[in-house]
């Protein structure tokens, strides 16, 4: 006994206990189908009992270690598995009732407590700390997918409105060929080309602008105006200029990414302090030497900021631009045509692909930032 009762575990125990009593599925008046109780679903019943036991034990003793948190997680995994099995194999789908949702709520309280404990875990050993850092978002993500699954299945949400993740996953797995073609067209061609060109030219123009004071004053307001241009308006024009293929999408991305990079780099170039500039002056360091040894490194946090903003802008730009005419491939093209055919699972598979690609892209840029600007106060860790 740790002195204080663990409130989350207490809630979990109470709700699991209630779910043992309340009906698990509602009645269908027309068919006269029976209301299901725990006695009809032994698998689910065992999971509920496990939750009651875990809830009571940890209410008393507390989830005081990562090991205990992992035991709680194991109980939750078992419970979630039984819940999904009950939905799909014991006919609860579309008919789930109070008892079932109380059980889900009990799982929620348990998983919340377990993730909380792991999130507050601190270890001096890098490996352990990193594992804990990965487990938290992964467990949280899986939990959200599970909630999505049981809510859509349990309430029988129409698939056109929101398909359950399992269906999207199945669609994803069975259409990898199409998805890969779309990914290649939209991401590997348009996004990469547009991103590199837009960010590269923004950086180079920023360095040029920095040398010419009147450009600095004249170009930046103009830049703000251009970056406020709606891509909806620009995209069709780019299609007229550069044709239907990926080049027109890359052009849209160049327009979207150029100015964030320009503006950020220009302010980054004045980030170097006066003292450091004086230091370089005492070494009679020339313009380029000072640029590469002092001003650009000092501007790196700003440049990475733009790279991160642009990584998300680029993918959005490419997908939206494809709504305005493409060859018959591409993520934006697929989304707009499959929505028309009511193939909502395919639309969601494309959205999942876009989310995956976007996260990986952003993650790669953020990772590079950590490596390159590890000296910056926002990243550095004292290590001796």
């Amino acid at each position: 006994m740790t002195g204080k009762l663990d409130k989350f575990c207490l809630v979990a125990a109470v709700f699991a206990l209630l779910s043992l009593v309340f009906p698990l599925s509602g009645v269908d008046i027309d068919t006269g189908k029976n209301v299901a109780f725990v006695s009809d679903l032994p698998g689910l019943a065992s999971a509920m009992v496990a939750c009651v036991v875990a809830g009571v034990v940890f209410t008393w003793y507390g989830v005081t270690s990562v090991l205990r948190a992992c035991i709680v997680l194991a109980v939750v995994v078992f419970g979630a598995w039984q819940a999904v099995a009950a939905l799909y194999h014991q006919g609860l789908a579309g008919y789930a009732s109070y008892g079932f949702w109380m059980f889900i709520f009990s799982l929620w309280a348990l998983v919340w407590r377990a993730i909380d404990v792991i999130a507050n875990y601190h270890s001096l050993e890098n490996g352990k700390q990193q594992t804990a850092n990965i487990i938290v978002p992964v467990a949280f993500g899986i939990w959200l997918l599970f909630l999505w699954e049981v809510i859509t299945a349990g309430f029988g949400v129409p698939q056109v409105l929101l398909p359950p993740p399992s269906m999207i996953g199945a669609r994803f797995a069975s259409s990898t060929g199409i998805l890969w073609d779309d990914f290649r067209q939209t991401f590997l061609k348009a996004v990469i080309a547009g991103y590199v060109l837009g960010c590269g030219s923004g950086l180079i123009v920023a360095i040029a602008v920095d040398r010419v004071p009147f450009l600095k004053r004249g170009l930046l307001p103009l830049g703000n105006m251009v970056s406020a241009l709606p891509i909806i308006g620009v995209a069709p024009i780019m299609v007229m200029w550069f044709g239907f293929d990926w080049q027109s999408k890359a052009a849209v991305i160049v327009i979207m990414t150029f100015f964030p990079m320009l503006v950020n780099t220009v302010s980054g170039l004045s980030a170097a302090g006066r003292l450091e500039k004086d230091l370089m002056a005492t070494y009679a360091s020339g313009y380029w030497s000072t640029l590469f040894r002092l001003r650009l490194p000092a501007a790196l946090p700003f440049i990475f900021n733009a790279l991160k903003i642009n990584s998300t802008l680029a993918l959005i730009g490419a997908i939206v631009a494809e709504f305005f005419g493409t060859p018959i491939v591409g993520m934006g093209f697929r989304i707009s045509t499959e929505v028309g055919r009511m193939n909502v699972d395919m639309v969601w598979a494309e959205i999942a692909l876009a989310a995956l690609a976007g996260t990986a892209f952003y993650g790669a840029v953020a990772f590079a930032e950590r490596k390159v600007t590890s000296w910056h106060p926002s990243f550095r860790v004292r290590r001796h």
Partner: protein
Amino acid sequence: MTLQAVVNNVAPMAASKDVVVDIQKMSLTFQTADGPVYALSEVDLTINKGEFVSFIGPSGCGKTTLLRVIADLERATGGDILINGVSPQQAREDRSYGYVFQAPALLPWRSIERNVTLPLEIMELSKEERLRRAHEALKLVELNGFEKKFPWQLSGGMQQRASIARALSFDADLLLMDEPFGALDEIVRDHLNEQLLKLWARTNKTVAFVTHSIPEAVFLSSKIVVMSPRPGRIIDVIETDFAKDRTLDIRETPEFLEVAHRVREGLRAGHSYDD
């Protein structure tokens, strides 16, 4: 040894000596939003080759400004300055001095070693030469073993020592040092004072050294320049001739105390200017 033997008023310099810094009737006025700030006025100063000159004066009297004018980081608004017989700008472009700023000014993305080799990189020295010089300079300030650390992993005093190492690795004949030991504790400061003195005695460098500490000024210098509050003027120049291989022990000698007394009197006289 009489006091007179130790302390002399500056006699006009014999032209035959190598003059490193030659300043005549130099003034500097900062134009600011709230009107002009007269930082330096009518400064006359000569520094000869091999001299160790300390500048001492109340805060805000223009010591840093004077050093910055010599380093061509600030332009005088009146008077004449020659460094090694050429303009300060030419001298800077010839890389004829090393400058230690009041703050360490280390680049946070470079390790200590790469901070020290920064000027050597700009001078385009070979890699072996750069590393050799960095190693030597870091040893001199007792930072060997910290080559791979980053500035923010070091204490403030260690950072300042690294910046001194950087100026030393540069190996210019003229060293301009702006309160380099201001942030250090007494023991480390004493130690570095001795190291600096040894370096000076061995290499015959010319040093211009700003300090707030009277004992430090007297111990290190062959010439002490006492400055008045703003607008900064030179109110006394005291020459000493302690042996070049002096140790910290001389701080107990009557000669030392006499010079320190004269510096203190000068500072006090400068302050009464204000009233």
